[in-house]
């Protein structure tokens, strides 16, 4: 057997803490090693060519690459082997970066550990078997979950390429948070004006099946072949008959506070469309507030409907669809400002949240765009805008919510625009404007006369101590630039609430087999180089579900996720898991322990022969059956007992050798 060893410097990432030349030299003397090299960047094209050339020149039949995590570059180096005609599974990686150089400061210890890891990989790779990758066809349909701007963008990109999309949205209409906004920073385009055409296009596209008021309940399968169960909640409206005339909504006697679209600042009916441009155009009946469902009375909507579209008997529908790829773009929740009692939201009428103010400035909103106090009549003469509410605070969310500075500046502009005489204060810690045109927008606000006070607002109170403060809200903060505690009386305070992961992001993550970070946002495969993929093949993420972001960035991610899906559809087939389990027919005693332990029901018990058999199309390669088998009759390819034990023994032997203690064999 001829093994080649390649130790990567990764610039100074590895070489800084590991003496790579020493490791390479040491490995050269190990059994079966034909060539051992170290190189600046193994993953570079030159590094890969080096491996390819050696395979040909030295006739290598096994390769060990000691570099970063296999999660980063396993496929890179398997590719290099394959190009040189070697079975890609004859390659094994030793992770001497994430698991070694980056976490140990002592160079001697790092070098020794690297040797042990390389020895372990060398010992293991000798037992590797050539595996043949099987391919499965890719279903050309795609599921997009979430009908905000990121999901809409993704769905349109795919649909415009000629492939079918199921777009699932929980609310009665698509549009997401963007549909609630008035203007968008820094260009001040009208949000609805740029969004509505996209919504309409998505709603009427021949390649898009729009499923609103619906939720994904279960996902089975794997990349290229997912089976999805969707619950389409009953709207109590016959979509075939409904023309969207709005008469039911007009006549409905029940009016409730709209906590979703109007962010609590306005009312809606019990039968409603969230907003006039809603897509689809059909309303829904909110059963919790409808008097028919609650008390068995009314049915007024039914009486006035000109097309008999009201259907009180309608029931939830369960749809089973097959798709090849999934994009999850479920967005964010706004931070609940009531969690910070010292700001008085919910206690003082004239403290508003960011989303409330968005609705207030919107011409289609509850105040028809007038900036007024909670009484709906009086106009504020002074407004305080408080940044970082629920952000940059370890008690709530440590991270920066990324959009609040810009939308706070936008709010200041809106007040200046609508109430030129009003004083506007922005209480900030740092102003963060790192994108195209953002800093210029900040400069514009400075010129417009916004008063910027550098200091996190400490509290808002209504206890006046001077005549000027009477009847006002008093914002207390340190003006850190002059080093003084100040009390600033204002008529209105707006809390720039941060962005949080959806309250149910954990359950959603579980449904789609993706992982979440410590803040509840979906975790990307790589934070820099693979921002829209996840650890689960065929499942992609986009928009604020992945982390706080603004509209341009959400759109870019939606498009990026769509591009990834399209490349998979275009390829037409996906690699199947090659590392699956196999039963040794000769030794299997038919005890069925494996059948019980398999999470995928991938093992069948053959009654006639009293043997177990693995269905390789269903097997995901977890190996639970192997550990359960009492007669050692199941092998998990690429993770065989021999391979794992050889890896362990290789490491142990190297450690004892380094210690200088000879051990009995």
């Amino acid at each position, binding site marked *: 057997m001829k093994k080649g060893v390649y130790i990567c410097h990764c610039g100074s990432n590895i070489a800084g803490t590991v003496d790579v030349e020493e490791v390479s030299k040491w490995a050269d003397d190990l059994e079966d090693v034909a060539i051992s090299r170290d190189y600046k960047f193994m993953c570079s094209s030159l590094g890969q060519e080096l491996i390819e050339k050696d395979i040909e020149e030295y006739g290598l039949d096994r390769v060990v690459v000691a570099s970063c995590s296999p999660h980063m570059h396993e496929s890179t180096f398997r590719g290099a082997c394959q190009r040189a005609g070697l079975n890609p599974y004859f390659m094994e990686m030793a992770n001497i970066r994430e698991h070694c150089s980056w976490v140990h400061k002592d160079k001697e210890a790092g070098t020794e550990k690297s040797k042990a890891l390389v020895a372990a990989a060398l010992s293991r790779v000798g037992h590797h078997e050539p595996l043949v990758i099987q391919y499965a066809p890719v279903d050309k349909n795609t599921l997009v979950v979430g009908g905000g701007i990121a999901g809409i963008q993704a769905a349109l990109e795919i649909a415009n390429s000629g492939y079918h999309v199921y777009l699932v949205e929980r609310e009665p209409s698509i549009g997401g948070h963007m549909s609630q906004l008035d203007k968008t920073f820094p260009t001040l385009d009208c949000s609805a004006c740029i969004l509505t055409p996209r919504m309409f296009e998505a709603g009427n596209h021949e390649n898009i099946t729009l499923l609103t008021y619906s939720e994904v309940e279960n996902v089975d399968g794997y990349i290229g072949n997912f089976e999805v169960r969707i619950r389409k909640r009953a709207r109590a409206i016959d979509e075939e008959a409904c023309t969207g005339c709005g008469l039911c909504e007009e006549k409905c006697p029940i009016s409730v506070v709209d906590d979703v679209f109007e962010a609590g600042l306005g009312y809606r009916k019990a039968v409603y469309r969230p907003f006039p441009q809603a897509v689809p155009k059909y309303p829904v009946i909110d059963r919790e507030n409808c008097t028919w469902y609650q008390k068995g009375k009314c049915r007024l909507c039914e009486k006035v409907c000109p097309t008999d579209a009201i259907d009180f008997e309608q029931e939830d529908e369960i749809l089973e669809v097959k798709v090849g790829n999934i994009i999850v773009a479920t967005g964010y929740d706004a931070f609940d400002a009531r*969690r910070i009692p010292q700001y008085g939201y919910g206690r003082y009428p004239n403290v508003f949240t960011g989303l409330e103010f968005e609705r207030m400035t919107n011409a289609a909103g509850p105040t028809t765009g007038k900036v007024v106090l909670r009484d709906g009549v009086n106009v504020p003469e002074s407004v305080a805008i408080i940044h970082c509410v629920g952000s940059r605070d370890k008690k709530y969310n440590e991270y920066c919510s990324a959009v609040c500075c810009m939308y706070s500046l936008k709010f200041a502009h809106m007040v200046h625009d609508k109430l030129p005489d009003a004083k506007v204060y922005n209480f900030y810690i740092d102003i963060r404007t790192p994108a195209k045109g953002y800093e210029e927008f900040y400069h514009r606000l400075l010129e417009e006369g916004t008063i910027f006070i550098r200091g996190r607002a400490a509290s808002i109170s209504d206890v006046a101590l001077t005549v000027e403060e009477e009847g006002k809200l008093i914002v207390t903060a340190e003006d850190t630039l002059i080093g003084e505690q100040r009390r600033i009386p204002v008529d209105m305070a707006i809390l720039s609430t941060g962005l949080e992961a959806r309250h149910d992001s954990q359950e959603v993550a579980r449904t789609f087999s993706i992982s979440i970070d410590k803040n509840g946002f979906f975790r990307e495969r790589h934070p820099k180089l693979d921002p829209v993929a996840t650890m689960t093949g065929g499942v992609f993420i986009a928009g604020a579900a992945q982390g706080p972001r603004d509209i341009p960035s959400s759109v870019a991610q939606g498009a990026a996720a769509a591009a990834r899906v399209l490349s998979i559809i275009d390829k037409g087939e996906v690699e199947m898991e090659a590392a699956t389990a196999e039963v040794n027919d000769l030794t299997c005693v038919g005890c069925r322990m494996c059948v019980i332990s398999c999470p995928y029901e991938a093992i069948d018990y053959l009654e006639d022969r009293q043997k177990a058999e693995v269905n390789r199309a269903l097997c995901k390669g977890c190996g639970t059956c192997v550990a359960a088998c009492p007669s050692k009759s199941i092998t998990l390819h690429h993770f065989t007992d021999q391979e794992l034990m050889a890896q362990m023994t290789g490491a142990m032997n190297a450690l004892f050798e380094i210690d200088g203690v000879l051990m009995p064999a």
Partner: protein
Amino acid sequence: MKYAWYPGCSAEGNSFAYDETSRMIAEALGIEFQEIDDWNCCGATEYFSVNQLPAYALVARNLALINAEETPQVIAPCSACYINLKKTDEKMAKYEQLNTEVNVALAAGNLSYEPGAVKSRHFLDVVCNDVGYEAVKEKMTQSLAGLTLVPYYGCYMGRPEDNFDHPERPQTMDTLLKTLGADVPDYSLKTICCGGHMTQLSAEASLRILRHLLEGANQLNADAMVVGCPMCQLNLDAYQKDVNSAYKTNYQIPIVYFSQVMGLAFGMDPETLMFERGIVSSKAMLEKWLTAEPASKKRRRREKRDKNALPMPKQLES
């Protein structure tokens, strides 16, 4: 229910009324007290600032004097005593070295204390959470309807951490006073500090702080401010006159202990509840209560929605 009782130095002087009425309330509610024999001062905020180890040892002596088997919980009516007892116990449990050192010091007096043995409780916490609002309601013979009582918690009931109520938005006393039938407005300054020892150090600073608190209560038409700490009571009561002369105001807000108003609702004689110990007279409050029509449980009509007004967000459930 049997607890150790740590009255604190104020009980022997300034807050005599609190101590007495607490004992009366406790008896009515079936709480049994075992006063710590020969307890000493907790050191207030002063001792810790100068010399840490003797400060902990000072407090630990009190904990060591308690028979933990018999009374594994100690009640302090004073917030400063409560926080010092709690802090000493917790820090000894958390920091091994401190625990050892304090115990070496205690050994010099033939005492020892194992952290965690005695749990420190505020009297308000015990009344509201151990006895419970339902049991309080059962003992009531008359409602406090007609009185606007402003609950004032001061700083220590919810701070610095893991105390019995929220550090910024405590609810215990609000709920208690509502249970007694009083009108309880949402007092936004209820956790703002009373200034503590500042009355001794800077009259200007302390009067400014006190004025802020009194103004807040005054704007809510308080018939009285209700407290659960002798320091809060002393500062707001004894210096109210000074605030009035410094700020040309005319506050006449009696500062009473929650135990005193509970006594009223339990039908105890106002005389025995020692309202007259307050510098600011409680007469007006008591008269208002006595003359309030029992039926005048002001039937608040549901306010009609102003057609212009925007909806208010709901308050967070506590």
